[in-house]
């Protein structure tokens, strides 16, 4: 595909970037990204992916907009309360960039649908709010060889890292199991709205970099942000040779595959 004159204007500031150019923009327009979750992280990530011109975006969430969402889920507005999040989100993303294809999946990610859904996209952005869903994303992406970007927030801090199957640790190398049922999350401790905003924007940047082969990805690098001290930290991550998801002796392994 070749950029139209309108597209060269719209994406001028992408095109000017060293390493992107018109070829890179064409590549983005031909790429696709799936956002699992349409809440706090997705609000920021989806906006920046749409603005960058990722040609096809998938939004997956079975939830409806509630008033307390509006404190951080900036894809939605007051008039959307009661509406399906994916529909509200799609409307805003199409308004921002009518040239994109925005696909909505008003359902929850499950082990049964994950393979079919994720196979349809080039990269996956984890915008979920629970580790059970994250493990489904992790295991499905490992199976399909899809890259995904984990993101999580709590109170005043957030973090992210990128899982590229075959390179570096997967999610379960680092978080082997779900938190205890009673462990407090944002519902109990709160979350500052700008924090998922920051992490979601970083996820979008990582996704664009991945799609274009730019820069250095957060493979094996946990990037952590704290709003209170306004600091960023990085913790190096190692693959776990005994990982149940990606190690050679993983559960349900068929033929041996290289560990990540």
């Amino acid at each position, binding site marked *: 595909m070749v950029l139209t004159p309108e597209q060269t204007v719209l994406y001028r500031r992408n095109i000017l970037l060293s390493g992107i150019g018109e070829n890179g923009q064409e590549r983005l327009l031909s790429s696709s990204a799936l956002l699992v979750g349409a809440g706090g992280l997705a609000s920021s990530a989806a906006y920046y992916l749409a603005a960058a011109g990722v040609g096809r975006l998938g939004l997956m969430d079975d939830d409806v907009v509630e008033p307390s969402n509006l404190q951080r889920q900036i894809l939605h507005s007051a008039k959307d309360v009661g509406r399906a999040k994916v529909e509200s989100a799609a409307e805003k993303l199409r308004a921002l960039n009518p040239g994109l294809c925005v696909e909505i999946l008003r359902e929850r990610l499950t082990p049964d649908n994950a393979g079919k859904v994720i196979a349809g996209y080039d990269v996956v952005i*984890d915008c979920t709010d629970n580790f059970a869903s994250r493990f489904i994303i992790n295991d499905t992406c490992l199976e399909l060889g899809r890259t995904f970007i984990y993101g*999580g927030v*709590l109170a005043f801090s957030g973090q992210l890292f990128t899982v590229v199957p075959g390179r570096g640790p997967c999610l379960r190398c680092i978080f082997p199991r779900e*938190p205890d049922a009673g462990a407090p999350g944002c519902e109990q401790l709160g979350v500052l709205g700008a924090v*998922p905003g920051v992490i979601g924007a970083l996820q979008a940047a990582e996704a664009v970099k991945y799609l274009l082969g730019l820069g250095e990805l957060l493979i*094996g690098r946990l990037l952590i942000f704290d709003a209170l001290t306004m*600091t960023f930290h990085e*913790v*190096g991550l190692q693959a776990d040779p005994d990982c149940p998801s990606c190690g050679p002796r993983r559960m349900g392994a068929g033929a041996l595959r290289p560990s990540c």
Partner: protein
Amino acid sequence: MNLDVRVFGGLEKLLSGVRFGESIPVDVAAGATVRELLSVLGIPPEKVFNVLVNGRHAEMHTVLHERDRISLFPPVGGG
């Protein structure tokens, strides 16, 4: 033995004078486990969702070694 410990995600509030992500030197008995380290620090184990030792996840019973770099997190799972 000397350990390098960093705490994140609000766990720093459980320690006095410690900043988010700041490296703090901790001295524990040789052969101490993660659980024993948490006890020395005064962090209830149930508040810790994951422990990384030199970048690898560790369990409560994992034995620590001199100059291990340990990072402690609550569940950072919101989205």
